[in-house]
């Protein structure tokens, strides 16, 4: 009897443990997937900033000479060898006798040359050619670079100050059908030719400073010093140099534009585009959202219209984001933009100005998308302001406006701020509506530049999320996706997280503040 009872007890006990473990594990799976995502994106993204090592891979095909290759890799020599081995095994399969042998060795003497347009060359340093003399010493490179820089500056000066204005004059003359033989025209042409000659000379001088590298294929590569972005021996970096390298790389990542088919360079245009869109959006959505929330919480009577407004807000929060994109394209771009075009830019039609997807429409679309976020958050902030404070203010003779303005709003302002931060986080991570209303994978120019009227809201822009989406959509496996994409992922994740955490902290501090009241 007692044995039976203890068996039943044991069964019950085990049942409870099982349930507890099951619910715990489902919780753990979610936490682990969160951590895994972070580690994966972080680990892959950080790689972009680490210096790579140079390796020499010599492959011996049976019955032919060795083929030497220089490789750049984040991995150690053994791991690189293993991955090459794997590739060869897949390629050759059972065909064992044709399988090539290979040796991977660290090549410490090799230089890595990164050009301005994002290409990277690995090779042995041969010589440095300056004008007519050959300088073998690399330590001269910095001197030559300063020299080239001054040359480039003077070239730029000539182009900006002389050639540009002359070109404009000549263009004006020829447009007015002035005969080419008139003295004015002739003088201008002569002058233009003279300066053009100077410019060509300087350009030739710049091109005369060259560096020579010997590539793995015994080929000699000559690159103008002016094209060099960086030249260093990756395997001989000290740890301080490595850290400096990493910081420099972070700097390029944040300030450069993507190069070589979005494999190197940086994501500055995407960051800039995201930022500008988010700012315009916040400027639009904040007053609307905050004042609408004030209406709902402070003024709205309890009737059917108010409940309809509330239903609108909760439904707007649930509408799939791509539907906002559809609305933005139909209403803003084709509707509003189309009418603006036909009213103000009819001379440029049929090529659209505002009637095409662009920054302004994207910002407005995201503004509507994030409107419920701001409203809900602001209302939450207003709700936390104790009722008796309002009553006190009103009892002292303040009007309702004064109560809200002087008492309620200052206390609820963290709520509004939370709303804006959450809206920004949402807009920074949202992609689906943006690909419909103006975000593109590559925009030739920034929305702000020196050209009048300086801010081009009708332009298409780059967005971090869209950049990532495009990178994944066109390269489907991990090995093909460049580490730049992972680095961008990491950046986006970081931005969204910092924004969310600051919103949480703000909200918690708000709660604590009013618990005391």
């Amino acid at each position, binding site marked *: 009897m007692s044995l039976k009872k203890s068996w039943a007890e044991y069964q019950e006990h085990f049942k409870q443990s*099982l349930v507890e473990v099951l*619910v715990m594990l489902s919780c753990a799976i*979610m936490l682990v997937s969160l951590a895994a995502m972070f580690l994966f994106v972080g680990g892959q993204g950080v790689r972009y900033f680490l210096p790579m090592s140079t390796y020499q891979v010599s492959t011996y095909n049976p019955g032919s000479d060795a083929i030497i290759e220089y490789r750049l890799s984040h991995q150690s020599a053994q791991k690189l060898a293993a991955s090459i081995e794997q590739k060869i095994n897949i390629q050759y399969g059972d065909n064992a006798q044709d399988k090539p042998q290979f040796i991977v060795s660290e090549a410490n003497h090799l230089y890595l040359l990164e050009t301005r347009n994002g290409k990277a060359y690995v090779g042995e340093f041969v010589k440095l050619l300056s004008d007519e003399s050959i300088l073998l010493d690399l330590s001269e490179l910095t001197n030559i670079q300063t020299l080239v820089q001054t040359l480039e500056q003077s070239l730029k000066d000539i182009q900006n100050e002389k050639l540009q204005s002359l070109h404009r004059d000549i263009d004006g003359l020829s447009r007015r059908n002035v005969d080419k033989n008139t003295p004015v025209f002739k003088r201008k042409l002569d002058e233009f030719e003279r300066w053009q000659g100077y410019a060509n000379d300087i350009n030739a001088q710049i091109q005369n400073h060259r560096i020579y590298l010997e590539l793995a294929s015994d080929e000699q590569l000559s690159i103008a010093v002016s094209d060099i972005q960086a030249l260093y021996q990756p395997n001989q970096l000290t740890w301080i140099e490595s850290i400096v390298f990493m910081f420099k790389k972070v700097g390029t990542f944040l300030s450069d534009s993507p190069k070589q088919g979005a494999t190197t360079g940086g994501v500055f245009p995407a960051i800039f585009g995201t930022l500008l869109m988010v700012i315009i959006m916040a400027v639009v959505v904040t007053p609307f959202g905050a004042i609408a929330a004030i209406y709902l919480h402070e003024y709205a009577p309890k009737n059917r219209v108010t409940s309809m407004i509330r239903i609108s807000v909760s*439904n*707007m929060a649930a509408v799939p984001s791509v539907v906002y994109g559809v609305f933005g394209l139909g209403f803003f771009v084709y509707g509003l933009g189309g009418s603006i075009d036909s009213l103000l830019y009819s001379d440029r039609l049929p090529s659209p100005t505002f009637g095409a997807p662009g920054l302004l429409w994207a910002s407005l679309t995201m503004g509507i998308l994030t409107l419920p976020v701001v409203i809900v958050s602001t209302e939450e902030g207003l709700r936390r302001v104790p009722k008796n404070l309002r009553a006190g203010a009103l009892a002292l003779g303040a009007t309702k406006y004064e109560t809200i303005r002087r008492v309620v709003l200052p206390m609820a302002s963290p709520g509004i701020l939370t709303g804006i931060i959450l809206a920004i986080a949402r807009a920074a991570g949202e992609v689906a509506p943006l690909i419909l209303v103006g975000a593109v994978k590559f925009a030739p120019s920034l929305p702000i530049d020196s050209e009048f009227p300086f801010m081009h809201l009708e332009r298409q822009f780059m967005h971090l*999320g869209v950049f990532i989406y495009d990178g994944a959509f066109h390269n489907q496996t991990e090995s093909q996706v460049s580490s730049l994409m992972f680095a961008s992922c990491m950046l986006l994740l970081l931005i969204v997280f910092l924004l969310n955490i600051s919103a949480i902290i703000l909200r918690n501090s708000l709660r604590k503040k009013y618990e005391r009241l």
Partner: protein
Amino acid sequence: MSKDKRRYRLDYFFSRFVTGFGFFVLATFATLIVHILLNAAPLFQSPTVSFTGSQSFETKMPEKNSSVMSVVSKFNGKWYVIDTQQCQVKVNGLFHESKGLTPIKEFAPNCSRELLSYASANEIMMLRDNNLLEVFSLDTDSNPSLRLDSSFKMSNFASQSIPALWEINKRQSSIFIFMPNGDESAYVWHDIKSLKPPSLFKVNADEKVLPLMPIAHLLVWHSSNANLLPAGKPATQTIEYEANIDQMYASPSGLDAYAILDNQSLVKHTVINQDGQFALRQVFEVPLGLEDTKTVKLKTDLSNNLLILLNEQGQLRLLNAITGDIELSIQVASDVVDFNYENGDIIIQYESRFSQHSLEDIQGVINLDMLFSKNDYSAYPAPAYVWQTSASSEFQTPKFSLVPLIIGSLKASILALIVALPLALGAAIYTAYFAKPSVRSAIKPSIEMLEAIPSVIIGFIAAVWLAPFAEQYLISIFAVLVLLPIVVICIAAIHGYLQSRFIHTRLATWQLPINALLMLLAVVFIFLLSLLITDWSNIGESSTIVQSVSNLTLSKTAIVVSLALGVAIAPTIYTLIDDALYEVPDGVKQASFALGATPIQTLTKVVLVVAFPSIISAIMLGFGRAFGETMIVLMVTGNTPIADWDLLSGLRTLTSNLAIELQEAQVDSTLYHVLFLTAAVLFVFTFCVNTVAAMLKRRVYKDE
């Protein structure tokens, strides 16, 4: 006093101002709905022919003799009349109603025999008296010009016969000419590129020939029979019609053949591939309700799924080319000579004038039935659900069946729910019921962080890592899944033991990490073990089960999508369920415990029951979120619109379809309106889900 007045006025204005903003929200929401619905609305209208914008061109027609033909064509949005007469090609424009025909250009190529002919749009064929056949194409830019395309010698051309019908297919570089003659008709089927002289095939005098150019077959028809055959070869199929054939037409794609029987009904056949041989399958037969007069012409508009038919009495019929429904039947002036149709514009030619009409609301041809039920598309062996809008050439019919997209959306979101629900429910039960408040306050924000991860990043990880990973280590993943229950039972035993021993120590706070670590270790162990085993032995090749598993291709399938989507929506469901469970009053739980119920009994019989409506509402909201999620499905699936529920096939959802196709859709095209309809479907769906979820939640509050 005046200061107070100002204050009160300010107060009043502020209240008006704020109210305005409140109503602005309502207005925004209303604009959103109305705009989307308005853009979907044209699909529900039936097409009409507008006569208001119609123009009538009174012209004196050029004198005609038997060999002269004229054709009306539309280039760059304007109508032109091309007359070919006596070795001359005259291009006239129909620009102004008052002016009639405006001469544009005349061409007079060298020729001495009055034998000229025209082709459908802008090709002109000319037979020289030395039996040289030349094909010109007419460029009608700002300055029209005639360009020689090809020429070849027709050595055995019957010199008396005049071509009645000819067609040229540039892609297959073949030309077809039909020449009816008194006792014996003949046709030519010729490869332009070949150097051999064109071959002439004879048919009976009462037979007529219709070319199906793209499949290099012909339809030879007389009385009530039509034979399908390759040029010069015996018939491969004979179609018996129920009545006499008056006229047969082929669609520009050459994949459909239309026969008009007794001027009363229209029969459509479509070409299918039957065991490697082309055959015709009947699609529909519709009565046209026309008077018994000669049919002038049948024109097909493939890009709008439209058939336009006009008889000499001026009875015009617009038919849906797929279902055969008559969309519109109207009467225009009688004694019609000819008509032409080009992208929504109809021009009708009478004895001495032209009249032009435009077709409004062509999108209305696509009705709800076509969007939601199986359609009998041309060249398909059976009616099917197809979404295929990339009508790259004008010869392709866009196919707008929303069923594959809806199935894709439902498939992805239901699977995602199956993945997410156990996770979310389990985690919520843990944090809201079992865990200590301190543990809950640590875990809940973390899971909410998971909710904040942009879906593009989850999609990115799933696309570049999860899909290839699942593909590569399929067997190991399978092994982990099979052995997982055993692992869970073992961990439960360890957990039970530890808890009975250390329940009052600090170890109790670390239950979750300990269990998680145990499971992680077990999973990694099983994973590596299965890898080693498959590496060492040749299990992968011998065992049929393992082989069939490893033959599966997981990448870009519904399963991978469901995992990624499940992870994305689980935090949403978790947060809502956690709140619901946490809100269950403590008193209820205490009462249950006081009655001697175990924690498990309290959970299943009390807490879950009380929170049930909220849990259902949470699940619905999660489902709504999965249904509306765009980026993950866009990046992880192959975006193939397939209408089946197979877990191992790709899918395309309503949302990702919008992201892919809306940018390329022309404003006010049928596709544009159909896409807005899908947006409306999404909108209405989430609206319903949201409303029902809100009602369920409100019920709980009422009960309390």
